[in-house]
């Protein structure tokens, strides 16, 4: 029997970390993820976990300490947001290229400037090409579940890549909601022990970690990283299947909500997907065939699968909670339309940049997107595929 609880998203992430009981947690506080290491350090102080908690002096050091710990053969975790992730940036690439399956809880927040502490996805989008697996979470429940699955995915011998679990800052991180927790012993059994194949503290196999790697082999090593990222797709599906056996909660690469018979679809990630479900239900009651594709696995990007899932729709809007400032469109939009193009799927597609710096996204906003899509299905006209949702109108 699962445990009925009510927790904030940060409490949910910290609870998962407590149940995982990693060898090392190294973290530096930053809003809105601060509570995660704060709660976790309480667990350490109270002796509920055996973890070595390293209160580092910066996020760069937090990631460095996790890298050191994982290279030594330990299981390491951390949490951060926005500029904290920016400060880790150099080490983010080191972690993935050294194939160290570190798990990071990323509570999404706008990267400054100007200074803003609220939710958008600009932090996550800044590291989308860094070789980390990236899972997005609509709710506190999904943030918790994704964390429980994280080590099984990251540490799989065909993967060996670091993984970050994203959730929306404040919107889910600071909202108390219902959640079903898994019992401690079941989590322990599910996550299992970390038995690295190669590690620095193995006296029987002396190895070097992170030596110079020039023209002769770096390319091959990068190709191996890319291969591992491709492998991750199947591993994520396999681990999710095991998770479903334990909890009854089903996870795929993405969630299809009333998508199979829909005419107009929205693609988005994290908490906005929940608001979109609310709108889809309302529109369905009015006879409008609206649907949603919620991306859970953003890296690896399930290009073929997404293209296939969208192939029957008449028009699709892709919502990005971060602007790429490239005069062309957001990252999720570009990945989605290129996935459709190479898979020979030709659906009219538009992009909305929304929710920047914590701008609230209302049900009315989402409804207006579906209305725009319906218009496109009738007129076939897309004048400007790169749009804003919820931007203030110019005042006279």
């Amino acid at each position: 029997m699962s445990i009925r609880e009510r927790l904030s998203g940060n409490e949910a992430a910290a609870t998962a970390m407590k149940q995982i009981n990693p060898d090392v947690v190294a973290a530096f506080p930053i809003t809105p993820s601060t509570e995660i290491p704060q709660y976790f350090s309480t667990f350490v102080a109270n002796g509920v976990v055996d973890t070595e908690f390293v209160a580092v002096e910066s996020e760069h050091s937090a990631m460095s300490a996790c890298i050191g710990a994982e290279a030594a053969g330990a299981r390491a975790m951390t949490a951060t947001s926005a500029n904290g992730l920016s400060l880790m940036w150099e080490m983010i690439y080191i972690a993935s290229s050294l194939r160290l399956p570190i798990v990071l809880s990323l509570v999404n927040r706008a990267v400054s400037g100007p200074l803003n502490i609220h939710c958008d996805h600009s932090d996550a989008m800044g590291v989308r090409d860094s070789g980390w697996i990236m899972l997005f979470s609509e709710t506190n429940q999904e943030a918790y579940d994704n964390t429980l699955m994280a080590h099984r995915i990251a540490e799989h011998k065909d993967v060996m890549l670091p993984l970050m679990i994203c959730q929306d800052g404040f919107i889910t991180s600071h909202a108390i909601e219902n959640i079903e927790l898994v019992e401690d012993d079941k989590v322990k059994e599910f996550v299992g022990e970390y038995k690295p194949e190669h590690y620095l503290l193995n006296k029987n196999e002396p190895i070097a970690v992170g030596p110079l790697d020039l023209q002769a082999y770096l390319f091959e090593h990068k190709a191996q990283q890319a291969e591992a990222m491709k492998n991750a797709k199947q591993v994520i599906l396999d681990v999710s299947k095991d998770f479903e056996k334990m909890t009854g909660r089903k996870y795929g690469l993405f969630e299809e909500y009333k998508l199979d018979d829909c005419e107009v679809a929205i693609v988005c990630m994290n908490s906005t997907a929940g608001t979109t479900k609310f709108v889809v239900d309302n529109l369905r009651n009015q006879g409008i065939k609206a649907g949603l594709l919620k991306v859970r696995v953003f890296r690896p990007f399930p290009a073929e699968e997404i293209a296939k899932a969208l192939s029957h729709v008449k028009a699709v809007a892709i919502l990005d909670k971060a602007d790429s400032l490239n005069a062309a469109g957001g990252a999720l939009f570009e990945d989605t339309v290129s996935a459709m193009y190479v898979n020979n799927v030709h659906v009219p597609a538009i992009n909305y940049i929304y929710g920047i710096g914590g701008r609230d996204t209302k049900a009315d906003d989402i409804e207006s997107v579906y209305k725009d899509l319906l218009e496109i299905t009738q007129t076939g006209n897309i004048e400007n595929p790169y749009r804003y949702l919820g931007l203030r109108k110019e005042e006279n």
Partner: protein
Amino acid sequence: MNDLIEIRWHGRGGQGAKTASLLLADAAFNTGKYIQGFPEYGPERMGAPITAYNRISSNPITIHSNIYEPDYVVVVDDTLLETVDVTSGLKESGAIVINTTKSADYLKSVLKGYNGAVYTIDARHISEEALGRYFPNTPMLAAIVKVSGIMTDEALLEDMKDSFKHKFAKKPEVIDGNMKALELALKEVKKI
């Protein structure tokens, strides 16, 4: 779906409106409901206007936006009435609960023609009588439970006794005062 109740709290930083919204979420959770309790974070400082929200339903809640058309509004500090549009979007089938001793005429003048039910409570008096200090959030919590009928008085008192025991584990002397504040508030909230 249809039994979704949405509540918006208006208070000032330091008065415990956020805590009250979380306590209400807790209490409703304990009666078996699906709940959301979340503050709208802004520049956090003592005395600044703050907003917090609750959604309560028998069914899972997926929407994750702020609340624009609440069923109920709770005003923890009546000095906000002239500066914040507290009845914005408030359903006329719902109600507003205000911590105030001001006259009905004054309230009508600042509520911008709101035609729904208006309830008042003197949370300062209750808090000072029960606790000897001014913590308006406990009486306001009881007042909104009474007005909205989210749960019975007994269920609230039972549940809060438990949660105060945990919340005030290190200062048990304030538990009785908080319970008294709840009881008084349940009796004293009145419709004008």
